[in-house]
Every structure is written in C-alpha cells, then in structure tokens.
C-alpha cells in the first residue's frame, strides 16, 4: 500500500522527465521507419514557430493579459525579418539572418506595446485590442511591403542552411531523427523554451510574474509593480511571436506573403491545450506540427492515400475543439487573465 503510494508520488515528482523520455524512446524505437524519418524533420520545422509564439503567449497570459494579437505580432516579425534580410543579404549573408531575427524580435516587442498600453493603462477590452492588433498588422505590413519592397510579397534569397550536429548526429536512432539536417534556429528556440521554464518556475521573478496573473492585488500589496510585470509579459509575447514569425521565413517559407495562415491562433490553442505549462505547450505544439506535416505530405504517402486530404487538414482544428471540450471544464487558466488591474 505505502509502496504503491511512494510510486505515485515518485511518478508525480518526476512526471515531466518520465514523459519526455518515454516519447523519445518511442521515437527511437521507430526511427528506422521511413514514415517517421519523413515526417519528424518537417514536424519539427512546423513546431518551432508555434512553440516560440505559444511561449510568448505564456508570458503574457501568466502575467494576466490575454493576447489574441499573437497572429498579428507573428506577422510583424515575419515582415520585419523579410525586409531586413532582403536589404542586407547582399552585404553579408551570414549576418543577414541573425540580424533579421533580431529586428523581428524588436519589432514584435514594440508593436505589442500598443496592446500593452490599451489593456494595462486604459483597461480596454483585451480581446478587442488583440483583434485590432491582428487587423492592423495584416493591413500595415502589406501596405509597407508594397511601398518599401514594391510588392506585397517579399522574397529572400536563402534561408537557414540545414546542418548536421557534429557528434550527436552519430547517435543511432535518435541522432538521425533530431540532429541531422537541423536548422540552428530550432536549437535557439529550444534554448528559449528551457530558459523560459527556468525563469517562470525557478526564480522569484517568475513567481511574481505568475502571481500577477492569479491575484494581482496580493502581489501589489507585496510591493510588486503589477503594471510593470504585465508590460514585461506582453512585451515578451510580442518579442517571441515576432521571432516565431521570422523563423517561418528563414526555415520553410522563404517569402513574406502577408499572412501566417492562422498559426498565431493555433499557438493560442496550443497554450490552452498545453494547460499554460511549458511542457504542455511543447507537447501541444509538437502535436500540431506533426498533424500539419501529415496533412501536407499525405498526398505523397501511399499509406495515407485512401483518406481524403480534407480530413488531415481539418484534423488539428477538430482535435483542438475536442481537447478544449475536455480541458475547459477544469481550466488551468491563470485566474486573473483578461481582467484589467
């Protein structure tokens, strides 16, 4: 009996590493399958922008501000990086991409200040403000693209080149799946994920930030400036969504075309699906990334040929709805999210 209880607490304490290891082992087991080998690299490429953006949403929502403008903020980063890279890649290719990502982060953070000002200082309806951000971003970026680059579409010459990681790629099984032909931006994104987890859950700053989303008046009485914390949360969401948009450009897209096709909204869904927790978000975004990949490659894989492609395309959205049905009853949303303070 007590042994059973010990096992349970042990599992609860180490739940996170256990789940991660189990998933990796599963993938290693099937790493010889050509299907997995085809899907996983693309799945990772599709996951990363979602992951980074959803992490941004995590900062914002944990600090107590709903950010429905992630879609627009991604678009701002997508555009800012495209323009930056287009005008610097002739000078230095190796510098253009990091510079583009950096400018995207700055642009996203600056643009998100519109949302921060409206929802923190003016106590505006955050959902409407977020919608305004989305519409403003989609109109303004195309407007600027037309005037600066002469066309609504901005193409860059070369994105990030895929590379093998020196030692790790030689590991049998997992090495070939994760460490061969990978984008360096993927590792930056995963590092941000790790750092965010540390910042939010292992530092007193993170505790205060999360408390702002649960019980702002208590935090204020403890001497913390809630407004400043919320500005930080929204600013991070803008910066990371901007980075997410830029990563789309430098990995699989290569061209700014005026839309991120709902990825920002999917990130918000991943945030809810992942129950506002870093590991949950990683799992949810990887799930969406895989689902998108399967939808995209389904036509060329004979195993999937019998199923109409529309099923694959609507699959992520239907599953999100079903997941929301399951999770919304006992929602783990920050208690004060969306409420002005």
């Amino acid at each position, binding site marked *: 009996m007590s042994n059973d209880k010990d096992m349970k607490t042990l599992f609860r304490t180490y739940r996170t590493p256990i789940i991660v290891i189990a998933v990796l082992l599963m993938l290693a087991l099937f790493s010889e399958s050509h299907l997995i080998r085809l899907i996983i690299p693309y799945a990772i490429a599709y996951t990363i922008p979602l992951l980074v953006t959803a992490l941004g949403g995590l900062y914002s929502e944990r600090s107590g501000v709903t950010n*429905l403008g992630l879609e627009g903020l991604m678009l701002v980063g997508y555009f800012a990086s495209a323009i930056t890279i287009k005008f610097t890649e002739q000078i230095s290719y190796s510098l253009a991409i990091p510079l583009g990502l950096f400018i995207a982060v700055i642009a996203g953070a600056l643009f998100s200040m*519109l949302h921060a*000002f*409206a929802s923190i200082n*003016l*106590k*505006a*309806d955050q*959902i*409407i*403000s977020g*919608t*305004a*951000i*989305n*519409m*403003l971003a*989609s*109109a*303004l970026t*195309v*407007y600027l693209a*037309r*005037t600066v680059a002469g066309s609504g579409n901005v193409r860059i010459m070369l994105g990030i080149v895929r590379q093998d990681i020196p030692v790790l790629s030689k590991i049998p099984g997992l090495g070939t799946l994760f460490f061969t032909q990978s984008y360096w931006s993927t590792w930056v994104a995963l590092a941000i994920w790790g750092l965010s987890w540390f910042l939010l859950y292992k530092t007193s700053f993170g505790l205060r930030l999360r408390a702002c989303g649960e019980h702002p008046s208590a935090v204020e009485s403890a001497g913390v400036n809630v407004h400043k914390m919320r500005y930080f949360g929204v600013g991070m969401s803008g910066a990371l969504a901007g980075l997410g948009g830029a990563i789309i450009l430098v990995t699989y897209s290569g061209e700014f075309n005026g839309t991120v096709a*709902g990825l920002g*909204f999917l990130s*918000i*869904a991943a945030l*809810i699906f992942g129950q506002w927790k870093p590991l949950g978000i990683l799992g949810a975004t990887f799930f969406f990334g895989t689902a998108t990949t399967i939808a995209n490659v389904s036509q060329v894989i004979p195993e999937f040929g019998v199923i*109409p*492609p*529309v099923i694959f*395309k*609507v699959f992520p*959205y*239907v599953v*999100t*709805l079903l997941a*929301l*049905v399951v999770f*919304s*009853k006992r*929602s783990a949303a920050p208690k004060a999210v969306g409420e002005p303070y």
Partner: protein
Amino acid sequence: MSTKVKSNAFLVAISAVILGLIAGGLLMMAIGSNPFEGFYYLFRGGLMSMERVGNTIATAITLMLVGLSVAFAFKTGLFNIGASGQMLIGGLAATLVAHYVFLPRVIYIPVIILAAFAAGALWGVIPGFLKAKFNVHEVVATIMMNWIAYWSIYYFIPAYLKGPSLETESRSIAIEQSLRSDWLTDFFGGGYINLGIFVAVVAVIVVKYVLDKTTLGFELKAVGSNRFCAEYAGIKVNRNVIISMMIAGGLAGLAGMTFYTGYSRNIQIGVLPSMGFDGIAVALLGASNPIGVFFSALFFGLLQSGKGFMNAMTDVPPEIADTIIATIIYFTATSVLFSRFWDKVGKRKKERNDARTAKAEAQESDHE
C-alpha cells in the same frame, strides 16, 4: 459606467473615425503621397457615379450583416470572431441552391435566404453549444470553425462545383439565379448592387426589434450584462448563449449569401473573407446598436469600395483602407480615453455654466 459610455457612444465613434483618418493621412504622408489627394480619390472612388454608389452600397450590405452578427453576439457577452467561416458556409449553401434549385422568383428568394441563414446558424451554433455545455471559449472555438470551413470549402469546391477554367473558384451561378435584379442594376447603371440591400435593411429592423421589444432580446441582453444575475433571475443562460450564437451565425450566413451570390457570383477557395473581420469593426464603431451598425457599415463600405480607384490614381496602396479600419477599431477599444476626454469637456462646460449662473446670481444679489 455603461450608461456613461452609451451617452457619448456617438462622440466616441466620431473621435475614433477622425483619429483613424488622421492616422491614414500620416501613413500616406510617410510614403510621400499627398493625403488630401489620397482621401479625395478614396471618397471619389466610392461616390463619383451612380454605379460607384451602387458598389459602395453592395459592399456595405455584406458588412452590415456581418456587423449585425458580431453586434448580436456582443449583446449576449459573446465575441463572434468566426463570421468569416459562417459567411463561407452560408455562401456555399446559397451557391448550391443557386445551382440546383429552380423555382419562381417569389419562392426562390425566401428559399435561398433560409438556406444561407440555416447553414450559417449551424456553423455558429456549434461554438455556442460548446460554450454553453463545456465552457469552451467562443473566441478560440469560432477561430477553429473558421479554419474548418476554410479547408472544407478548399476541397469541396474543386470536387463538386469546379469552374470550367480555374481550379481555384467555383463555376459561376446563372445571373437569373443570383441576387442581382434588373431594375436595381438599371437604376444604378450597372455594378454589383443586388437584392441583398433589402435583406440587410430588414435584418437591421428585425434585430433592432428583437433586441429592444421582445422577451428573447431582453433575456439575451440580461445574460450579456451579468450572466450570474440573469441566472438568479431565472433566465436560462445556456439556452440564451446557444440561441445568440445561432442567430449571429445565421446573420453572417446571410452576409455570405449577399457576397457570394450577389456581389460576386462564385466562391474563391483559399481565402477567408476579410469582411468577416471588418464586421467586428462595424459592430464596435456602431456600439453594437443596429442603427449604429447601419451607418458604420456604409462608412466602411465607402472606404473599401473607393480604395481601388484611389490606388489607380495615386501611389497609395489599397491596404490603406484596411489600415484605417484597423486603427479605428484600436481607438474604439481604447475608447475609455475619449470617454474621459468628453466627460472632462462636459464637466468643464458644466462648471463654466455653474460659475456663470453663480456669478449672475451674485450680481443680482449685489443689485438688490
């Protein structure tokens, strides 16, 4: 608070519009164009001939119905961001009717209206049900429904309604089966004007009546202003949430009908209609009031239909219209700022009046 906002909703709307136009002017200046010239051609593009006026109205019809849809949901405290998907599905139903149902005009028009309304209502009632039953946030649910509609249309059109030349749009419906009408077209001298104008006007009146004069409207608004209070008063909150989303979806479905079988005569795939989002602006600027929606839809219709002409005559990209609309939403969202401003103006005026009367009284007493 709410009464205060309501009392100066008009001033807030006008302030937001003026600031939006100023922002648009600054953007035109930023790219080296003359803003006065830009606005001149923007408005001229929407108004310079009867045909252009007809096109402006035709654009406004769709925006009006989407605006009503969003406003209706707002009244129950729900945010319907899924009007785009509801438009697509309503438009698909109308297109199917137009292709396959042949009836005398008097019966045909009600049939196509009912079909579009029902299809849109179906797309709206799902998020409503999920909200009422499982507490799923309607914003995320309606966005998911948008993408489900987008991909369903994306595969349905090429499979069943493929056009003769293009893979990316449905085959056109016959003009007699569309909402275009000879006498309207003759009156405006051509263009996109269609019978949707009557659908939109009737919808404005009906929605106004339902919200202000019926028990259903009272219940819906009660749920919107305080759902706990409404529940305590014995109003079935969940039922009202579902009904509200159903009607909102239906109205957006009608918008889809006016757009896909009136304004245009086919459905393009791979596009979420942007009017679904512009309708949010229409509802906000109109303060969720049907009459307000009517006028703000005409205004946004003017911006949208004039932008092509402006782009042809100047260097300003057509997206300026969307930028102005988005800026107006932002300023409506931050309307607290203007409310405070107008309150202060009002207070100062009152103080001045008070001071003046006090002074006059004092003088009078001096005379005595």
